[in-house]
């Protein structure tokens, strides 16, 4: 299969190189302000098919690009998945108070566009009396204080499905599931068709409708190529469990900021991990189980 795909890519590359590299480069530079390196990247191959050497070159290229743009050193890593690790997330909805600290910590950590605003986490407010009812939920609640007596809160981000509809519908295979279960996007390969957004039953994917606005002093300089590196207009993005942190052993940013400790994270293959403990001992459910997407994001009640 790999051979066939490669063949097509070579054809595409040859075609583009031969037919109109010069024109395209000029046009792209003139109209989008992109550097020639960015154009080169566009003509390159999919991230998943790059050789280690090519990855190295691409990372350096990106680091140079970003460092120039932000006027400070930006690191872009491509830390691979660890062996024998599949990530899972637990969220205690008996504790969540709906304060949205996680939403903004995520924006800070993952370099989302400040304007137009992109949030990877959406906290839904629901009525205790009615129970979980996504259709009636409210993401725009804004009382003086939370939690409100009548309400409970359900933060929703990418559920990192094992059976992920988003990756299946991508016409260019720009999104896929990594070995450690994180669903990632190759921003350089994404064509912005937004099929994945309509396929996702959780509204977890977000589109850069305009050139993302990311202030220089707000940028998180520690980035991963498939995660929080600065994005461009016209690509889709989503939660990656903070791939730049968790592949280096750290907890995701949302779980460290949570003032009530409602967010849990760990290795699903490790029986001693926090996530496995809560799956064993607590009442656990997944969102829209009936769709058989098999999320790795588990909601639980600790009380």
């Amino acid at each position, binding site marked *: 299969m790999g051979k066939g795909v490669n063949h097509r890519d070579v054809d595409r590359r040859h075609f583009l190189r031969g037919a109109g590299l010069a024109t395209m480069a000029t046009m792209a530079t003139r109209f989008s302000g992109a550097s020639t390196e960015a154009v080169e990247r566009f003509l390159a191959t999919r991230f998943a098919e790059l050789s280690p050497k090519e990855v190295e070159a691409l990372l350096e290229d990106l680091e140079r690009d970003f460092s120039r743009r932000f006027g400070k050193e930006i690191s872009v890593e491509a830390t691979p998945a660890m062996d024998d690790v599949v990530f899972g997330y637990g969220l205690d909805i008996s504790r969540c108070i709906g304060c949205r600290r996680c939403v903004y910590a995520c924006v800070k950590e993952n370099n989302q566009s400040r304007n137009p605003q992109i949030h990877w986490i959406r906290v839904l407010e629901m009525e205790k009396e009615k129970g979980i009812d996504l259709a009636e939920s409210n993401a725009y609640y804004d009382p003086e204080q939370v939690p409100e007596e009548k309400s409970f809160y359900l933060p929703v981000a990418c559920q990192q499905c094992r059976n992920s509809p988003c990756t299946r519908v991508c016409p260019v295979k720009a999104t896929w599931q990594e070995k450690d279960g994180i669903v990632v996007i190759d921003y350089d390969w994404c064509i912005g068709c937004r099929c994945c957004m309509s396929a996702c039953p959780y509204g977890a994917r977000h589109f850069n409708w305009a050139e993302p606005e990311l202030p220089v002093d707000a940028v998180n300089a520690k980035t991963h190529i498939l995660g929080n590196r600065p994005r461009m207009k016209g690509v889709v993005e989503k939660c990656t469990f903070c791939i730049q942190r968790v592949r280096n052993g750290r*907890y995701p940013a949302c779980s460290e900021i949570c003032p009530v400790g409602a967010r849990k994270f760990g290795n699903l293959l490790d029986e001693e991990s926090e996530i496995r403990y809560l799956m064993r*001992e607590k009442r656990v459910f997944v969102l829209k189980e009936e769709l058989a997407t098999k999320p790795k994001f588990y909601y639980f009640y600790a009380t």
Partner: protein
Amino acid sequence: MLILFGGIGLVTILSIVKGGADIERHEGGGLKAFSPEDFPEIEWNDPSIDEPGAAGLDGTTEAFKVAPPPFSEDIFPCSECHADMEPDVERRVLEDMHDDIVLDHGPKERWCFDCHNADNRDRLRLANGTLIGFDESYRLCGQCHGTIFRDWRQGIHGRRVGYWNGAKSYLLCANCHNPHAPKFKPIKPLPPPVRPEFLGNQ
């Protein structure tokens, strides 16, 4: 035909006007985009962890760090004042010192010496008479809150910071819960996301 078009026009105008009314109704939130930078009072990233070596935390050691007890300034050691004082075990309203403490923890009969030790104020006292330090206060809390103590030790109750596969820091119960009034006070939520219809107006 004219009436038909007129009707459609009217409906369109009405829906636009109604859209205007929607803006009024949305005044609660979702009109304006906020950034994390708008909330400098919140520490978004614990800087001590960003430099793993500095905090004694990195992926290689299995060490667990427990945060120090959250004493008010200059309050510890308690013996500094209490050493020269005769213990008064009488239940009473405190007036000269500690009058800021409002006990709202379980039954009304709760009293200082249920947890604090009368003879040596620098220690806490378990129900069986064992004296423990303030840095081990979780043992005291765990006497009543057994299931939560169990979850806390497993990392299910409370916040952990650090490495999911290695060293991490815990918080003591008292770092989050005021031991004298442990129920969480409500807080102000950060602003809601911008409603899609206002995304372009920012």
